[in-house]
């Protein structure tokens, strides 16, 4: 399509055709998916879900934005370096069990307690959640990194192909 447009005399061809419906729904659905991913993340200890699935879903939400807009816009919307996020996630995954060792138990022995709150009643607190935050970040960032890398690669080979014609 791009090459056809170029032949017709359009000098500047956008990577992505504008689609108003897609863009508006993407914004709304993005919020819904992110909320659901956080819900999945917190339900993960006893029921299906957890950091991995939640992270994948979060990455899916951001990829939806990528589909609706393009890479440049996405980078303007979310100014986070994926590689930094992976490092941060790995660090979280590591620091939690190292701090836990100060309880005098073997590696990775988690601590938990129950908290009585006025409105919510009995709320369980578990250090595994902190570890899972790391997993969530790593999975989301890795998936995004891979997909954006592939997308920019695709973009590069596309433009090369157009040049060759």
């Amino acid at each position: 399509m791009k090459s056809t447009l170029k032949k017709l005399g359009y000098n500047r061809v956008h990577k992505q055709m504008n689609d108003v419906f897609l863009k508006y729904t993407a914004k709304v659905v993005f919020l819904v998916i992110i909320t659901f991913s956080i819900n999945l993340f917190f339900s993960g200890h006893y029921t299906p879900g957890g950091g991995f699935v939640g992270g994948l879903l979060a990455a899916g939400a951001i990829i939806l934005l990528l589909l609706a807009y393009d890479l440049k816009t996405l980078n303007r919307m979310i100014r986070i370096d994926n590689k930094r996020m992976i490092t941060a996630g790995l660090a979280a995954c590591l620091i939690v069990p190292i701090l836990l060792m100060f309880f005098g138990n073997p590696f990775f022995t988690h601590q938990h307690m129950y908290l009585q709150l006025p409105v919510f009643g009995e709320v369980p607190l578990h250090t595994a959640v902190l570890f899972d935050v790391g997993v969530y970040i790593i999975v989301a960032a890795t998936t995004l990194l891979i997909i954006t890398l592939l997308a920019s690669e695709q973009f590069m080979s596309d433009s090369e192909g157009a040049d060759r014609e």
Partner: protein
Amino acid sequence: MTDILPILPMLVPFIAGIILLAIGRTNVFLHRVVASLTGLLLIIISFFIVAYVARYGMVVTHVGNWEAPFGISVVIDMLAALLVLATAIVTLAVVVYSFQSIGAAREKFFYYPMIMFMISGINGAFTTGDIFNMFVFFEVFLLSSYVLITLGGTKIQLQEGFKYFLVNIIASNFFVLAVAYLYSAVGSLNMADIHNKLAAFDGDASIMSLIAVVMLFVFATKAGLFPFYFWLPGSYFAPPMPIMTIFGALLTKVGVYAIARVYSLFFMDNTGLTHQMLMLLAVLTIIMGSIGAIAYSDMKKIIIYNILIAIGIIIAGIAMMDEMGTIGATYYLIHDIFIKAGLFFLIGFIIYRTGESDITKLGGLIKIHPVTGWMFLIAAFGLAGVPPLPGFYGKLFIVTSLFENGHMISGIIVLLSSLVVLYSVIRIFISVFWGESMDFTKLKPISYDKLLFSSFLMVIIMVAFGFGADFLYPLFDSAAQSLYDPASYSVYLLGVE
């Protein structure tokens, strides 16, 4: 104390890897500092672990405080401790060697973090006491090795890296399959627990032979045993020297370690089939390696085929599964880590200095690098097993064990392979260091003090290892004990049931 100590070998490089990632990729100097400090720290920790295990016996921790057969246990017996120590020393040497050889472009693309993550995975595979966890650590170091083998993205690296990736992915899938078989047959994943259950079982355990074959397929692919070695000479040839060193010295050894562990703990029911099969493959590997080592005139290829010979000899010792054989195998295993690293370093130095890896195009280097030349000769003798260098003791034990068990032909093949090894490496020495002088003006003006530091360090350790064989004997005796007497490995489960 015992809670923290066993996990340190995998934890420390992992922390270092994350620190390196956090530093970012522009500050190469800081990368070098952190990586070499980690290497030093690992060596100190591993020495401490070896001393601790020698004094108090096996050190065990149960991750997550789950009881032994249910959770994951990290178990360091003497064999694992010695391997961790050898890994740490080679890591430091490789990191120092990389300063002047790998090139700034690769260093900037997360070279040191990947080395650290790989060491973390290797140490994890050595120290874990759980077969599925071992698979996980295999994946950890394989993932890093995929990155390392393609790092730089030259044509040959991508070509061979893809092959390497494919072979290892398939082998890993079969690993999961074998673990699933094992779990459905035995109902446990803790290696010591599996051993106890099988030892107490007096029914028909012929299913274990099937699992033995699948496991052998997996680990033979990783270690480079006879029918599955086809990927090894090509893939190890592709990456730059330091990466090739760490692959050749350590990665295949993890496969050998896994074979030793698994065949000693799980498959004692039908040794007539399983261990004979191992023996046959070992002998064929030696023969194929010998053919390759003589056939090529490329230094890298010659040393790579020498890896195959060494793997075959170690596996032959393990297949005997008696005291002599396993002591020889463990001793030769550690020796081979050092000597292979040393030889790769030395030929790497020659290649970086001359820009040429074909021995027919080199000659007379001893006039310029006399010390290096003689060091290479010592390394060559060590590899072939000239007494009192360490290759000799390992082979002595293995061959004695082979003859005692009536494997005359295998024993003779192992002995003959020493001649082939000696011939193939001395051929490098004669044509590179002696012979007609090459054009010395073509030598590259590189700085090479760190290259020589790592090379000589390995050769000196190897020599000390040989002269200290008597002093080190108790360590290897107790390392081999968990192979020929697997009940001593699973002793930490006593009173658990």
